[in-house]
């Protein structure tokens, strides 16, 4: 019997350790068992879907592990106990096969119900309606029902993210752009075209929804709608080289008016830098020995 007593001690120690971990982490309890959420509707819906699946998982876990534990205690070898020589039971086999299949049918159904809300962009809120422009859907690119969104190009390269904002014209070369931090208006549906120019990266801001890979030669799409102002942090999620850990990304959600000012300043800064570069080029053309 000694080994069984020892097993009880193991179980008690394990429970104590788990309880200790839980007690040490009261601040993060809300997100202890679930993914990040709260920044964008799609992240919230993934969180909800996760909670449903997790609940089913917990029931299965308790059922299986509970039966296992009960069996181990109830049917441990004792004096005089004789093992039942059972070879199987077809009805039971069919029963649990069908049971497992039914659980999966339920999970699949829930997923299909939740999928459109997560995958398909929704309309922008009224406050940001002035900032969104018509965007066309093609291939896997999805747009909100009203066809309008703020479409930002996200380009990954070792080890920085580049964001190209729309400026209303068809020339992509004169658009305002920024690195590392993306600024978006609160309430606007932002659709992202995700690309990479060297190796594979993955765009991921946990509170704003799921990640999407940026793979050279391909364009990947996702969306988010920041529901409240704030800074949402994330980082590259696909191994991209030595400084993969430092390839951070963040999204700053600001009121629509502030967004307009930001874009104006960005455009002016870029125009000023271009003008300065043109000036030094002109000087160098005139006098190659000049210091620019």
């Amino acid at each position: 019997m000694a080994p069984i007593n020892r097993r009880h001690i193991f179980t008690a120690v394990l429970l104590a350790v788990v309880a200790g971990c839980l007690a040490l982490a009261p601040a993060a309890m809300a997100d202890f068992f679930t993914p990040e959420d709260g920044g964008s509707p799609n992240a919230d819906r993934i969180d909800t879907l996760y909670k449903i699946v997790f609940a089913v998982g917990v029931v299965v876990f308790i059922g299986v592990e509970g039966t296992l534990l009960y069996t181990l205690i109830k049917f441990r070898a004792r004096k005089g106990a004789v093992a039942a020589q059972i070879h199987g039971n077809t009805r039971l086999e069919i029963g649990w096969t069908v049971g497992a299949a039914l659980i999966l049918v339920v999970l699949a159904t829930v997923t299909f119900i939740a999928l459109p809300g997560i995958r398909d962009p929704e309309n922008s809120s009224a406050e940001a309606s002035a900032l969104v422009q018509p965007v066309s859907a093609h291939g896997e690119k999805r747009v909100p029902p009203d066809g309008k969104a703020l479409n930002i190009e996200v380009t990954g390269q070792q080890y920085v993210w580049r964001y190209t904002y729309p400026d209303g014209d068809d020339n992509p070369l004169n658009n305002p752009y920024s690195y590392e931090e993306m600024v978006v208006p609160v309430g606007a549906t932002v659709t992202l075209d995700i690309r990479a120019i060297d190796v594979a990266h993955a765009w991921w801001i946990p509170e704003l929804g799921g990640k999407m890979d940026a793979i050279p030669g391909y364009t990947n799409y996702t969306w988010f709608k920041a529901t409240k102002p704030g800074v949402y942090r994330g980082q590259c999620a696909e191994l991209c080289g030595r400084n993969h850990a430092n390839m951070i990304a963040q999204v700053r959600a600001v009121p629509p008016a502030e967004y307009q000012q930001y874009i104006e300043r960005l455009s002016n800064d870029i125009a000023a830098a271009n003008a300065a570069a043109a000036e030094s080029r002109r000087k160098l053309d005139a006098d190659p020995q000049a210091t620019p």
Partner: protein
Amino acid sequence: MAADTATTPTLAPVPQITAHEVTRERTGLVDWLTTTDHKKIGILYLVTTFAFFLIGGVEALMMRLQLGTAENTLLDPSTFNALFTMHGTTMIFLFVVPIMAGFGNYFVPLMIGARDMAFPRLNALSYWLLLSGGVVFYASLFFSPPEAGWTMYTPLSNETFSEGGGVDAWIFLVHLTGLSSLVGAINFYVTIANMRAPGMGWGRLPLFVWTILVYAILLILALPVIAGAVTLLLTDRHFGTHFYDPTEGGSPLLWQHLFWFFGHPEVYIMVLPGFGIISEVLPVFARKPIFGYKAIAASSVVIAFLGLLVWAHHMFTTPSPTVVLVFFMMSSFLIGIPTGIKIFNWIATLWRGTIEFKTPLIFAIGFLSQFTIGGITGIIVAIFPVDWQLHDTYFVVAHFHYTLMGGAVFAIFAGLYYWFPKITGRMMSETLGKWSFALMYIGFNLTFLIQHTIGMDGMPRRVYEYPDVGNLVLYNRISTVGAFILGLGILLTVINVLRSVKRGPVAGPDPWKANTLEWFSTSPPPANNFDVVPRVRSVEPMKDIRRQIAHATGSGTPEAPPAPESLVRG
């Protein structure tokens, strides 16, 4: 069942052989280097792969040390990237897959009543190819170890982004170990198909042998794909081709598809023989026949088939149409059914048994309880919208360690404790074994349970440092402490093995009163395994033999200790 109607060889006259020359039996090092005995090759496999397991474990501990605190500067990024690349590659190509071949080598012929593998020299070649694969790979430590992860995603693994020979060493490792496994798989298949004891139809094949058969088939189907894929990578790197180069019309996604077309079956290649070990251990220590033999054997075959159809669930975040994502979600769901069936059957095997808590059984229970968690999180990550959050985070790291470490490795330890007496003729210490289990169980769960939360809090995998935000430091420190407890537990088993090899109590032929034919031979078995191969009449031939002896001698209960030696010599 032709085998059932064949005449029993035990009744056939012993052929007379005239010896023209008697070669001296080789001993010592020369014997180990030239052996074609499946048992010695099996031991070579087991010792070599276990050594690689310890190396891979040290790599893991170094990573956990680096992640023990935020913004740690203990290791530089290139060392850290090399560590996780070598850890993954070692554990998969040099430990879990080949150690299953080690157990298979030693026990498949014994369990089916054969005297060796079908092709003994090919068998030796398998082992030496494996060892050269390991040596070639680890030689890269002396120039530039690979840093692109065990998945070697292009373009990162292209010449432009991964200079030096590390990736090439990895490619040659895949070729050498792949060839080793392919040759070994063919050997297993031929042996199992042709060399079973009289009376051992497919319905009486031990469940471990069933899983080795399925393992062999999966290897034969999956390995040529990765061999082709890495050859294209090699020509991309050195001979100017552009199969995976997006700037010249190649496709990085092609690599991912080819890699995972091999990589996912590889997961089942690693875990199926573990399932087999569990199916052997549970009935022995519950003193009950396996529950649902046919269901367990059939579910292995179904898992293998479905395992070939789930590869793109590793690619849910790549640019893919929804219909593709849905297909791979559903196929991954489906594979949960045969896996669930196995778990239910195993618990039903314990149900109403008389469970003896010997170390092999305790490890098998560790497997059951942990693999269940890995299975449940597997369903969670199969749901692709949820996987968009969890993919490439520590949640996934936790998930696959629950299946591979908590699952396959605990099964390997169950197999080690179960079969050690047969291999060495000596028992291992139960006390040390149970302490080893306790530390491994606590350490493992401490390390990996918290990693689910680390991942959901936004920490991607394969990062050498992380910022001090939220509770990340606390969680990572728990994980690091757990890893060292786990390491200590493994160390206890190593000590147990080293002590017991020379000084353990003598085991005798059948210390566990087990069910399968390997226990019919002496411990360790002689070079020819069996002088006489008994006729097999059920899935549990040893139980039949014990009953037969009890009946013939009229001595005590049918569970009385058998005397196979007298039967063999007689």
